[in-house]
């Protein structure tokens, strides 16, 4: 498979029956989609299932994609929707403590204090109501634009902006008692 092939060429090749093209598409965009899903679904086993479901949805409905060069954004939307549907089915309003993100932690360049600060911020995000948590996670951690979030959540762009504003206000209020501050002098 030509690794320099354009996205629309890969989509065309898949539609013509090339399994390799699907593999290349997943190779290029899989990590991005998985990251988005994993931020929305902290439990890894569930995130793995949702990722596979989103990939199959995206690849099998490629014929519906009008602007094939926009595969990346389209795939991201499918990933977000699949993850949110999954959470809705589980009726998880809040992320329970055992569902918080278990990442590899900060790199060696971060001090212990910074690591503690990161954990506090992540816990505070996990405590947010679902609709606030979604926009924070998608905007700050999954690098989605306002428009991408609006499209994925099927809400107006203005609602995304107002939810982000309210979510940040709530986060700020929740973080103040913890003494978390920007920079290295983190704890009061």
């Amino acid at each position, binding site marked *: 498979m030509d690794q320099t092939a354009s996205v629309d060429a890969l989509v065309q090749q898949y539609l013509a029956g090339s399994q390799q093209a699907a593999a290349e598409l997943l190779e290029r965009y*899989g990590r991005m989609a*998985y990251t988005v899903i*994993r931020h929305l679904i902290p439990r890894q086993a569930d995130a793995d299932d949702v990722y596979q479901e989103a990939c199959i949805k995206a690849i099998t409905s490629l014929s519906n994609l009008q602007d094939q060069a926009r595969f990346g954004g389209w795939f991201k939307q499918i990933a977000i929707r699949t993850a949110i549907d999954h959470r809705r089915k589980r009726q998880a309003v809040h992320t329970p403590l055992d569902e918080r993100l278990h990442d*590899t932690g900060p790199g060696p360049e971060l001090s212990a204090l910074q690591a503690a600060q990161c954990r506090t911020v992540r816990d505070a995000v996990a405590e947010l109501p679902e609709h606030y948590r979604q926009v924070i996670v998608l905007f700050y951690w999954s690098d989605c634009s306002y428009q991408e979030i609006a499209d994925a959540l099927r809400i107006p762009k203005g609602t995304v902006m107002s939810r982000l504003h309210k979510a940040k206000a709530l986060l700020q209020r929740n973080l103040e008692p913890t003494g978390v501050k920007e920079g290295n002098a983190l704890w009061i």
Partner: protein
Amino acid sequence: MDLEKLLRESKPELPANISQLNTSVLAALQDHKATPGVQPKPAKLVDRFFQAFVQYPLPVLTASSLLISVVLLQLGNTFGFSHWLIQQAGSIVFR
């Protein structure tokens, strides 16, 4: 407190074995291509009963006995059980 900066700094790094997941996805896609649009059939009632019986024999037997008793009692209530039984026997004998 610059919350935006804090949030960006707190972005979790999430390791994943994407290659392995992608392999599973591609295998599922192959299956989908082989049988497009085919949904897995729901298990038949008899199969479900058998599976349940193997897994929980005692509760299933109890539930089945109760169900049969209820049906028989209902029949008895509706027709008069002895009358119904005699009719059945008669229909067999005089057929």
